[in-house]
Structure formats: structure tokens, C-alpha cells
């Protein structure tokens, strides 16, 4: 739940906003003047869930991260109720330890962020000299030491986008070469002349993409009930025959719309 998200949602928010479940927990700890190393887990869990309820009432979408933390708190609460195994060696592990550790770590980064925020304000006002193009180099240049993978793939994407813009015809043609509707029409017309035929004969000399178009077209013709397939033994010849149910060839075109 960042500032941005809350602003985007457009609701009048009267609750303070937090930048995540840990931020909310830190707020509750501070507000209750609690020792972070000895968090009373029952009241904190209650306050935490009460806050989530309040958010719900305000129609704020509660992010999964907040709900996950609520579950974690309840889990810790149940762990605290279990009798500790005093016979175990060394220090008994406090169920809160991991959470406290995370809170402390997050709190440090929160403070760093506050320092960064102050610097951000000051430094936004510091402007450099305008960039000048290097003499004797017309083309735009970039400093290689600052080029990252992001720039590399961006350059690749730009090249491909431009390629596509420059070659719309070629790509279109390649796709258009083997329309399913054409193949359906071709096979259907062939069958009107002569039926049945061997499918293998019809497929001879076709390239891979064309075979796919024919295969899909054949299935569609079977589905429409215009043709039937027959194979008398496994791996044997497939015979294609026209049925008594005439098809309107104009309807074939819809199979190219996908």
C-alpha cells in the first residue's frame, strides 16, 4: 500500500498510510511504546487485524502481503502458547525472533530512506551543464561503462520493431501463404471432382507450414460434416471422402480470423 496506490484509488483516507505490513507493525509498536524485543504478541495481533478491518471498511483493497502478515502473527501467537522444551540444549528459540529481526532490519532501511528523501529534495535542484555532442561524431553516442543489460535488450527490441515496420509485407505474406480457408477450399473442391482420395497423395510436396494448414483445415471440414476420414488399418492410407452434406464454402473464411 504505497502512497501512489492510495492516491490512485481516489478514496478519502483518514487512516495513516503505511508502506507495508512491517511499516504498520513498527507504527503500532511505537504508538504503544512497546519494547521491540519483547512484543506482547496478543494485543499487537489484535490491533493489527483491527487496522486491516478498518481498511476493509474504507473499501481499501487489502494487499495479500498484509493478510500474510496477519497469518504470521496468529501463527506466532499460537507458538507462544506452546510449552517450551526446557530440556532442549542451549537457548530456547523465541517464536518472535525472526519477526523482530525483520522489523529491526526494515527499520534501518526506513531510516536510510528518510535520509535519501532529504538528499533527494536538495539534489533535485542541482543541474549540470547541458550535454554536448562530441565533435567529429554525428551519431548519438553512449558511455559504455554505463550501458546495462536493460539497454542491450532495449536496443534489440528497437531493432526488431523497426525490422517489422520495414517488412510488414514479408511477414504478412508468410502468414498469408497458407490460409486454412484456402486449404479447406482446395481439398473440398478436389473432393467434388473425385472422391475418395488418399490424403497422403493430397499432402505430397507441401512444406511444413502448409501441412499444418491442411491438417487444421481437414479437421474443420470433418467437424462441419462435409468430409469423412477413413483408415482401414493402423499406419495405413487415410482415405478422404466427401459426404452427402454440402457445405457453403463462404463459411471457410471464418477459420482465418483467429
Amino acid at each position, binding site marked *: 500500500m504505497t502512497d501512489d496506490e492510495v492516491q490512485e484509488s481516489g478514496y478519502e483516507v483518514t487512516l495513516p498510510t503505511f508502506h507495508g505490513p512491517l511499516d504498520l507493525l513498527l507504527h503500532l509498536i511505537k504508538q504503544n511504546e512497546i519494547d521491540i524485543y519483547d512484543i506482547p504478541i496478543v494485543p499487537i495481533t489484535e490491533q493489527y487485524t483491527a487496522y486491516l478491518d478498518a481498511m476493509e471498511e474504507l473499501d481499501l483493497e487489502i*494487499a495479500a502481503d498484509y493478510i500474510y502478515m496477519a497469518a504470521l502473527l496468529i501463527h506466532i501467537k499460537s507458538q507462544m502458547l506452546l510449552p517450551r522444551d526446557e530440556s532442549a540444549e542451549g537457548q530456547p528459540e523465541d517464536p518472535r525472533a525472526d519477526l523482530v529481526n525483520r522489523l529491526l532490519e526494515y527499520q*534501518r532501511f526506513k531510516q536510510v530512506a*528518510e535520509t*535519501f528523501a532529504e538528499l533527494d529534495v*536538495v539534489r*533535485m*535542484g542541482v543541474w549540470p551543464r547541458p550535454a554536448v555532442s562530441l565533435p567529429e561524431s554525428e551519431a548519438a553516442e553512449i558511455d559504455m561503462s554505463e550501458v*546495462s*543489460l*536493460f539497454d542491450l535488450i532495449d536496443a534489440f527490441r528497437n531493432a526488431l520493431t523497426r525490422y517489422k515496420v520495414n517488412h510488414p509485407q514479408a511477414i504478412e505474406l508468410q502468414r498469408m501463404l497458407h490460409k486454412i480457408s484456402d486449404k479447406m477450399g482446395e481439398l473440398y473442391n478436389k473432393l467434388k471432382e473425385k472422391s475418395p482420395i488418399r490424403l497422403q497423395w493430397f499432402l505430397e510436396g507441401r512444406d511444413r507450414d502448409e501441412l499444418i494448414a491442411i491438417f487444421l483445415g481437414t479437421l474443420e471440414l470433418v467437424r462441419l460434416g462435409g468430409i469423412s476420414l477413413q483408415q482401414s488399418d493402423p499406419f495405413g492410407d487415410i482415405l478422404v471422402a466427401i459426404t452427402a452434406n454440402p457445405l457453403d464454402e463462404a463459411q471457410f473464411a471464418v477459420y482465418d480470423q483467429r
Partner: protein
Amino acid sequence: MNELRAALEAILFVSNEPVTVDALVEALDSDSESIAAQLADLKRFLDENVGGFTLEQTAGGWRLATRPEHEAILKKYFAKKGEGRLSIAALETLAIVAYRQPVTAPEVSDIRSVNSTGVLRTLLERRLIRVAGRKEVVGSPFLYRTTREFLIHFGLNDIRDLPRLEEFGDLIGESISEELVTAVQSVAVDHSE
């Protein structure tokens, strides 16, 4: 007038990026002591006599730049909207990348306890962080690092100039339960591995 000094001023004037002492030594056929002395002297001179810009040390080099107090007037003159301040979420994320780099998106999200993918994207777009390879774990997530732009933006000379994270103390929790402190420390060791 000092010829070395004038040439050095000319180079700094045409550069919009920080210029290293090494680059100046080479271009001006001088030595690093003389260059360093001239830079210090120029900075003093500008601070005493010129109100509109100064010489600053950042990202391992030196550059001329305006002073923060003229932000409003420059924005007005150049009718520039500017990028706007960084959000708290962006600053938190940036803090984590700065101290934990190289770091992955899941690691950042874990520390913040909030999904941080969108914020990382914003920082990438502003070139404050960059993708620097992949981590060799399941899913090979990208590793992020801060950029030179980050150093320049915050006026840092080197990433090592950041105060140690431990110096950011605990604001809350005066009385300490010793048992828990020990437990936390043992967990902390686990996490650092």
C-alpha cells in the same frame, strides 16, 4: 593567467558528467597533485565569487553544477516539469538496493514485506538502478545494482561513502530482553549466510 587552470576550466565547462582526476591528468599532461590543487582552488573561487554554480565532487569525479536554491527559477525558465520527488516506496527500495547490492526483486520484496517489482521498474526507468546479471538460484532472477546516476543524484562520490547500515540505530525499544537479543542475533547470523 594560469594556462593549466584555464584549460581545466574549459574541460569542466563542456562536460555535463563528472570528470575524473585521471582524465584531467591525461588531457592536460599534468600530475594528479597539481590537478587536485587546481580543483580545490577553483571550487573555493566559485563559492566565493559565483552565485549561479559551483564545482562538486561526485561519482568519482568533478563537475560544475548549479546550486539547489535555483531549482524554482530554472524550472520556471526551462518550463520543465521535472521528474518529481521519489516516493517513499521508491526511496525504501533504493536504500535496500544500495546496501544489499547486488540484490534480486524477491529479496527486496522480502525485506520490505511488500511486492516491490513495480517500484524497481520505476527506479530502472529513472536509471537509478540497473540490471547486473542474474543470481544463480532457481528461476535465475535479475540482480540489481545502483548506477553512477544514483551517486550523482544523491551527491555521493562513491557507494562506500554511505554510512554503515549499523549506524542507523534502533529508534524504538529502549529496554532489551536479553534472551530475545541472543535469539535475534542467532537468527541474524542465519540470514547473513
